[in-house]
């Protein structure tokens, strides 16, 4: 079983607040990913990292930013949350050809 964690699992926050979604993995994987998924819709890659100090934007434009200071930690930050950011955010890490996903953070911006 993969060890990848996301906190918080659920977050309801007001417009304009700064938020950070946490993602950690204990498997020592170099490659990590953030996806955004609306209910019943497809996953969209918004950020990825191939190692420490390496971050790239994904296929879907996002106002969020990420950092990778440590191998095990890949947080995602929204400087000013808006209702359009309401979605589920999934973090994943990868070893070889298999991606391991965290449980996700369901974000609601009011």
């Amino acid at each position, binding site marked *: 079983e993969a060890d990848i964690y996301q906190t918080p699992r659920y977050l309801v926050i007001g417009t304009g607040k700064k938020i950070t979604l946490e993602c950690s993995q204990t498997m020592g994987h170099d*490659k990590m990913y953030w*996806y955004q998924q609306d209910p019943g819709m497809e996953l969209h*890659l918004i950020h990825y990292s191939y190692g420490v100090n390496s971050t790239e934007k*994904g296929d879907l434009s996002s106002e969020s930013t990420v950092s990778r200071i440590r191998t095990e930690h890949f947080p995602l930050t929204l400087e000013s949350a808006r209702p359009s950011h309401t979605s589920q955010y*999934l973090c994943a890490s990868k070893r070889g050809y298999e991606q391991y*996903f965290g449980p*996700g953070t369901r974000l609601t911006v009011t």
Partner: protein
Amino acid sequence: LAKTTQPISMDSYEGQEVNITCSHNNIATNDYITWYQQFPSQGPRFIIQGYKTKVTNEVASLFIPADRKSSTLSLPRVSLSDTAVYYCLVGPRDYGGSQGNLIFGKGTKLSVKP
């Protein structure tokens, strides 16, 4: 990266075998075919990966014809708990970097009924 096409949804009954077919006409020589399963409110989970012919594990079988332009995920004797979205992905085995990242697409929503 090769584009994939799979049915939007499928219905089945408990105990039946379910076959989900994925088309990938532009598959490259070094591409593998990978399937993921996603339950509601959870992240996707790896099911199986193959390159050609047949691959079987404790969860599913993957059939890939010689021309590799399609593949079929086979779930034996499904139960209600197999209700999920199934994604077919095609790309290099160790994707990432200059080779790009795999695209999950819309997947196939499988509904298993009693």
